[in-house]
């Protein structure tokens, strides 16, 4: 049996060097601020963070292994369950990899629809992040304002794709169904609504003095560190790293539309926040350019009933709402992939958390985690 002093001694053994006075706190796996089953082991000295150690694997579903037993048409739906907030982009990346292997030319109509859907998903994802971010810092109301506009996007998705979150709308060669007759009108209505509401976001949260004080100068990540940790997406762009796949390696019709790559150079939490808020404006700009110009034609290229990728290795990447998603398929020439690897943005972004958090106060940790925009199923897959 343990005596009281022994128990105290035993807990100190968890700290890295066994120093007295260090405190180890477990945040998660069930904690409202981690947005999922993330387990952080935090070593503290008083209130100062000495080390943050993420423990992963609580929501590992072995999606990569599952994909090996599914055909090239079937495996796309599983990837909606990785980063469920950018399900469209995940499906897009997979469909593009299969198209690359089979050298299928995607009809222009499908390309336009795909990009519009991607950008709508990006706005929906950033909206949810914005609401959850404010909620992490204790402001509950913005969450509902964000969901109000997000609901409009979900309705558009439901009408055209058939589902609100896990759409499975992309198929190799195009999209599953043509757009709904009301789609264009509804997207235009949404743009109009969104433009009138986005200023509210700045009024409510961005300009708020409490919010700014908690975000500015917190969670600093330098440009060099962002590159060496492999960060991508808004996290890296908040540190001034130019890494937008849409701009640098354009796919589909991104080379035909005018939009800016959003860059902030401060590298703190507020910079990452501003990148996402400004990205929503850019997404609106992209949709506005495309929505009236969807060309007529097929929405799906003619493909064989059974898809067989030639022997070889295929890699494509897209820019999801969280960063760079890479899909790597090794094919042996059969109907199922030999090996699939997903390079998920969340995993690399999370790895920078320890570096960011060291030396800062524990109260700022949730603000930093919020700006990383973590989706845990994306990290574990």
């Amino acid at each position, binding site marked *: 049996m343990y005596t009281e002093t022994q128990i105290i001694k035993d807990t100190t053994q968890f700290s890295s060097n066994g120093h007295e006075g260090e405190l180890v706190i477990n945040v998660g796996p069930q904690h409202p601020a981690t947005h999922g089953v993330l387990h952080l082991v935090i070593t503290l000295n008083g209130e100062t963070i000495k080390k943050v150690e993420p423990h992963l694997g609580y929501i590992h579903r072995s999606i990569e292994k599952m994909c090996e037993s599914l055909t090239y*048409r*079937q495996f796309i739906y599983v990837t909606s369950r990785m980063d469920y907030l950018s399900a469209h982009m995940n499906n897009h990346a997979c469909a593009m990899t299969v198209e690359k292997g089979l050298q299928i030319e995607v009809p222009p109509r499908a390309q336009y629809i795909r990009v519009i859907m991607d950008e709508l998903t990006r706005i929906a994802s950033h909206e949810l992040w914005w609401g959850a971010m404010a909620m992490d810092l204790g402001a509950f109301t913005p969450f509902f304002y964000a969901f109000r506009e997000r*609901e409009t996007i979900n309705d558009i998705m439901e009408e055209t794709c058939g*589902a609100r979150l896990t759409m499975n709308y992309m198929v190799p060669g195009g999209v599953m169904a043509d757009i709904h007759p009301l789609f264009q009108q509804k997207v235009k209505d949404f743009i109009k609504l969104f433009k009138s509401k986005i200023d509210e976001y700045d009024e409510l949260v961005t300009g708020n003095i409490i919010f700014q004080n908690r975000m500015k100068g917190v969670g600093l990540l330098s440009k060099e560190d962002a590159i060496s940790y492999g960060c991508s997406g808004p996290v890296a762009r908040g540190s001034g790293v130019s890494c937008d796949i849409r701009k640098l390696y354009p796919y589909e019709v991104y080379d035909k539309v005018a939009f800016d790559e959003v860059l902030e150079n401060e590298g703190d939490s507020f910079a990452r926040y501003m990148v996402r808020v400004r990205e929503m404006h850019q997404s609106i700009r992209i949709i506005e350019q495309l929505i009236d110009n969807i060309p007529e034609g097929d929405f799906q290229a003619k493909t064989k009933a059974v898809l067989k990728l030639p022997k070889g290795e295929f890699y494509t990447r897209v820019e999801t709402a969280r960063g760079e998603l890479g899909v790597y398929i090794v094919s042996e020439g059969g109907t199922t992939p030999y090996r699939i690897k997903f390079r998920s943005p969340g995993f690399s972004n999370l790895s920078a958390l320890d570096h960011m958090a060291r030396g800062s106060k524990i109260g700022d940790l949730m603000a930093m985690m919020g700006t990383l925009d973590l989706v845990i199923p994306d990290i574990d897959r």
Partner: protein
Amino acid sequence: MFIKEYLTDIYKGTKSLLTGMKRTGYYFVRPREIITEQYPDNRETLVMAERFRGEVVMPHDANNEHACTGCTACELACPNATIKIITKFDITPEGKKKKALDTFVYHLELCTMCGLCVEACPTAAIKMGQNFEHSVYDRSQLTKKLNNPGSKIREGVE
């Protein structure tokens, strides 16, 4: 100088807080802008989107006939082994044997509503239904038989 900065900070802070409060107050006195749907109360008027994927259904016409030939294309397309098709052999008037559907077993508990079976069906015999209220007390109730009892294939569907 210090006091001036201190007071400016207080002024700016209060102003930013009031700006946010103004927005909240705006919606507080305008309940008409609330978009919340009171879900179980509005069940009678709730209309789901036409393409919404709630479950797989097999439409039957007035003569209790369906369009399923028992070709198992949906069974092969399904990633989760949700569909199991049991076939039988009918004897045609000419005395030949013809493959026909006996039972269309649909495991709703395994279905992820991806819609690949509907895409794969060559005769449009199945479609996605709009019903999404699937909760039951026992999981065995989720295994469904989609073809009606005594139903047969429609004339002319090959």
